[in-house]
């Protein structure tokens, strides 16, 4: 190989590399990053009738900057907005806890099932994920309204009194459009997101560790809490994030299964935009929403970075 061909080789490699990186990079900059900047801009813009004013206006030869933080001031001072953030976080947290409670034993027993059964069990968890999410949420409307299967079962067992006592429903026998139906719908939708990372973590666990624990005198219960649970911590964290983060911003489930009292921030943004046509306000809500999920996300990525460090 001569020097000239090898240098054109390298040049080709470099050019190919640039194109490979540049295409998705530019696409994301243009359609993901730029829109966020625009939202940030609009959130501090003033409305001028139906349109919003430009931030910079040239008046008498000088550039004037008009920034309006009143949306943010309003967002922090209006008790309704504050309650909405709190309740979004609260519903997301309850959903995450429920998913973990149902999902951990589920993933555990899946991972300990006969290995010939495991692909089928895994497939059965993923299959609902492939079928329309919208239709599955809609199905709960049927199950929870009057004479629905679940509604009949809950009322037949007298569980509605329990739910009423906890304030999860507002009157006996009415399960739809309550915090109960909202959390049930979110738990149902996001359960696979909890089960899958937990399963992959539990399935690769070395079972000899449990034997070792037993040899050292641990009861199965102690071994479970001292060996299995700590080893599946990465799965617990990943699953909880995969449930919590989308739940905070959820719109479709609160709209179909929630009621007037179940305040969710995604729905507030939607209403500000589509019902009130208040674009700057909707943009401010969007900015706050991003800030809300950035905190758990940062903790999560820090944890993951540490986990990969330790894995090395």
């Amino acid at each position, binding site marked *: 190989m001569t020097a000239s061909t090898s240098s054109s080789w390298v040049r080709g490699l470099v050019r190919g590399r640039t194109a490979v990186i540049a295409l998705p*990079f530019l696409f994301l900059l243009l359609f993901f990053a730029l*829109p966020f900047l625009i939202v940030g801009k609009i959130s501090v813009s003033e409305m001028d009738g139906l349109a919003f004013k430009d931030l910079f206006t040239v008046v008498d030869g000088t550039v004037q900057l008009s920034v309006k933080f009143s949306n943010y001031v309003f967002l922090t001072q209006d008790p309704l907005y504050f309650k909405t953030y709190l309740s979004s976080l609260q519903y997301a947290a309850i959903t995450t806890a429920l998913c973990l409670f149902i999902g951990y034993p589920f993933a555990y027993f899946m991972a300990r099932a006969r290995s010939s059964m495991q692909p089928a069990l895994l497939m059965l968890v993923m299959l609902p994920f492939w*079928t329309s999410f919208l239709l599955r949420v809609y199905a709960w409307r049927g199950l929870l309204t009057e004479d629905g299967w679940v509604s009949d079962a809950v009322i037949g067992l007298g569980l509605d009194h329990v739910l009423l006592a906890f304030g999860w429903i507002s009157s006996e026998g009415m399960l739809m459009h309550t915090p109960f139906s909202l959390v049930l719908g979110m738990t149902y939708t996001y359960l696979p997101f909890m089960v899958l990372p937990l399963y992959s973590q539990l399935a690769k666990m070395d079972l000899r560790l449990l034997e070792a624990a037993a040899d050292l005198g641990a009861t199965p219960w102690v071994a479970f809490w001292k060996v299995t649970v700590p080893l599946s911590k990465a799965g617990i964290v990943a699953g909880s994030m995969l449930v919590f983060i989308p739940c905070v911003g959820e719109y479709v489930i609160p709209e179909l299964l929630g009621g007037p009292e179940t305040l969710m921030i995604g729905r507030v943004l939607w209403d500000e935009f589509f019902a009130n046509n208040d674009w700057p306000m909707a943009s401010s809500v969007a900015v706050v929403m991003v800030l809300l999920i950035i905190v758990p996300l940062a903790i999560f990525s820090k944890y993951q970075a540490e986990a990969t460090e330790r894995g090395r």
Partner: protein
Amino acid sequence: MKSRWTTWFGRGWLSAGYLFLYLPIAALVLYSFNDSPIPNVWRGFSLKWYVALASDEELLAALWLSLKIAFFTACGSVVLGTLAAFSLVKYKRFTGRTLFAGMTNAPLVMPEVVVGLSLLLMLVSVQRLLGFPERGLMTIWLGHLLLGMAYAAVVVQARLSDLNPQLEEAAMDLGARPHQVFWLVTLPMISQSLVAAWLLTFTLSLDDVVLSAFLSGPGSTTMPLVIFSRARLGLNPSVNAVATITVTVVAIGVVVASYLIARAERQRLRDIVTAARP
């Protein structure tokens, strides 16, 4: 730990979990055959909701639009997602890599209402400046592409980082150009993940409500938007019929695809074993 009690408890928990996952789907399918227009009151078997679907112009037009968007989304997402995954796995150092990696994964965690709103506000600003684009198929496609690309990148990335780099190095040593290495060595090895990513992004696009609602214009209503507006008003047997058809198609599709993928994987392993034999 394998006492009788735990075995039975495990079976019970798994059964209850699967019941929870499949109960709504079973109810949807069953009531799509209900003769009564009143939901939850069974009055005998009937196919009339399916017959009604065939003349439901609104829904059929929306379905056709959704299928078109889903097809283009899946194709575009796989291309962009593969490029993104390839950049992240193969090139460990380039300017803005952290930003790029963050942006690739961000659409997965960003609330859809935020992505939809921001994209729409940008498109409105662009439209004010340039007079296009009108909201419709193209703008919905753009939104879905953003989301689909992120999912495709995750799927392809997982496969790419599992690959043995020695195979590509061997091809280079044997004189293959970089693009030949990609087309002849890398691509065939990641083809299954490309199929999986294509199917995943196709179903994602076919199912999306929020992005479509923000990005659709007059006359470009997708199927989930029609279903959503009907579901909002209450229970509607035509929605059950649509659901039954989707569930059937998806179930068959996923089972067939995973069977084919598993078979291809076994074939690949057999080939490797044969090739390794002296």
